[in-house]
C-alpha cells in the first residue's frame, strides 16, 4: 500500500517536472511547434471525444504481439547462437548482415506478404525488435560465468533443464533490460507503422494531428503515448522486482 502511494508520488512528480520543463521551453522558444502546455491541457477533452481507449488498445495490441513474437523467436535464437558453434557459424553472419538493413525499407515486401493492416505492422515491428533481442540474449548468455553450470551438469541435467534452471534465470536481469529497451523501440515504431492502413492507434493519432498541423492534438497524443509508456515501463519494473528477488539490493 505504501509502495503504491510512493509510485503515485513519483508519477506525479515526474509528470509535473516534465510539464514544467515543457512550459519553460515553450515560453523561451516561442515557436508554434512547441505549444504551451496550458493550451494543450485546455483541449484535453479532444482526447475523450476521440476514442482514446480504442487508440490505446490498438497500439497496445500491436506492441504486445510484436514484442512477444520477438521474444519467442529472439530468445531461442540468441541462446542457440551462444551455445551451439554450428548455429553461431550460420546465424552470426546472417544476423550481422541483416541487422543494419533499415527494416522500414522492407515495407513494400511486408505489405505484399502481409497486407497493409496489422500483419505488415507487426512484421516490421518484429523485424526491428527481434535483432535487438537476439544480440542482447546472445551476449548475455556468453557472459554467464561458467561455474554456475557445475552442479547442474554433474547431476546429468539435459539441455532443457539447464536452460530453464540456469541459463534463463542467469540472463533474466539483462533480458528484462532488453525488454525495456525494446519496449521503448516498439512504442517509437508505432509512429511509423501506424502511419498507414489504420485509423486507430496512438501513433496514428499523433501522425494524423501532425499532418493536419494541429500541434495541440499532436501533443495530446504525445502526452498519451508517454503516459502509456510510463505505465508499461513500470509494469516491467514490477515484474522484474517479483522475478529477481534473489538479487534484490
Amino acid at each position: 500500500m505504501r509502495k503504491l502511494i510512493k509510485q503515485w508520488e513519483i508519477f506525479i512528480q515526474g509528470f509535473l517536472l516534465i510539464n514544467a520543463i515543457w512550459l519553460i521551453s515553450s515560453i523561451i522558444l516561442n515557436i508554434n511547434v512547441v505549444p504551451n502546455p496550458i493550451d494543450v491541457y485546455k483541449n484535453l477533452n479532444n482526447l475523450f471525444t476521440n476514442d482514446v481507449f480504442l487508440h490505446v488498445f490498438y497500439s497496445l495490441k500491436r506492441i504486445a504481439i510484436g514484442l512477444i513474437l520477438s521474444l519467442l523467436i529472439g530468445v531461442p535464437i540468441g541462446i542457440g547462437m551462444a551455445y551451439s558453434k554450428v548455429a553461431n557459424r550460420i546465424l552470426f553472419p546472417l544476423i550481422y548482415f541483416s541487422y543494419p538493413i533499415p527494416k522500414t525499407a522492407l515495407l513494400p515486401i511486408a505489405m505484399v506478404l502481409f497486407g497493409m493492416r496489422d500483419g505488415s505492422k507487426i512484421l516490421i515491428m518484429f523485424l526491428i525488435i527481434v535483432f535487438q533481442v537476439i544480440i542482447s540474449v546472445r551476449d548475455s548468455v556468453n557472459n554467464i560465468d561458467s561455474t554456475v553450470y557445475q552442479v547442474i551438469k554433474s547431476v546429468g541435467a539435459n539441455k532443457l533443464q539447464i536452460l530453464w534452471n540456469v541459463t534463463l534465470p542467469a540472463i533474466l536481469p539483462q533480458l528484462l533490460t532488453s525488454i525495456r529497451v525494446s519496449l521503448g523501440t516498439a512504442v517509437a515504431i508505432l509512429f511509423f507503422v501506424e502511419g498507414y492502413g489504420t485509423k486507430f492507434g496512438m501513433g496514428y493519432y499523433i501522425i494524423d494531428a501532425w499532418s493536419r498541423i494541429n500541434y495541440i492534438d499532436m501533443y495530446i497524443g504525445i502526452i498519451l503515448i508517454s503516459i502509456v509508456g510510463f505505465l508499461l515501463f513500470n509494469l516491467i519494473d514490477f515484474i522484474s522486482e517479483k522475478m529477481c528477488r534473489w538479487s534484490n539490493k
Partner: protein
Amino acid sequence: MVLVENVSITYKSINEKTQVINNLSLKIEKGETLVILGPSGCGKSTLINALAKTKTIESGRIDYIQDGDRKALSSKVHKIGIIPQNCGLLPWKTVMENYLLPLKIRHEEINNETNKRIEEICKSLDIIPLLHRYPRELSGGQVQRAAIARAFILEPDLLLMDEPFSSLDEITREEAQSLFLKIWENYKPTTILVTHSIDEALYLGSRILVMGTNMGNIKYQIKNPYFGKLFPDEVEYLSIKRTLRDKLKPDVKNKVI
C-alpha cells in the same frame, strides 16, 4: 569402481595452453573414501571437475564399473554428487530450491521419506532456519553447509567433495564430518574428498593420496588404518601424519633450484 586411465587435462586461454594433469591413472574402489591431499594449485579441483564431467579431458578415459559392467562415467547414467570449491549454489534459488533441483532433475520422487531425510540432514548441519534464504544472504560457512547438505541429500553413487569443510569452525566441522561418516556408513557411496587438513584426511579417508606439483603425479598413497577414528592417540598415527606432511612439501629438486 571408478577407473581413471591416462587422463590429461589442459586449460586453454587465448595465447596460452597450461597442462595441469598429464597421464594420470587412478582406481577408486566402490564404497571407498579416497582423500586427495596436495599443494595448492596442483590440480585437485581440476580432477574433481573432470570426474564431475564439468571439465572436459584432453585425452584418456574415465569409466565406471558396476557389476563387471564397464561404462564411461556419465552424469546422465550415474548419480554424481559434487561440492565444488565455490559451493556452486544457484544464486536465484533459495537453499531449499537448490536441494530440490537435483532431485527433480533425477526424477526422484519427493515423498515423506525424502522429506524426513532432508530435514534430518539440515538439522545436523543446523541450517533449518536458512532454508528459505537466497545464497547471497548467507555467511561463508552457511553457504558451505548448504552445499554439503545438497550433496548428501542427493544420495549419490559417486560423491565428490572439494574442500567441503574449509570454512567451518571446529565444532561445526566435526559435526559435519561425523554426519558424512554416518551417511557413508548408511549406503557406502564411492567418495573422493579433497582437503588440506591432514587430520581430516586421516579421519575421513579409507585411502589417502598425495598429489605432487608436477602435472598431477601421484607422489604417495596409503591405506589409512585410522579411518573413522577421532583423535587416535597412538605414536604410529603421529608418524603417518609426519610422513604425509613431508610428502606435501615441494619436491627437493624444486627447492634446490
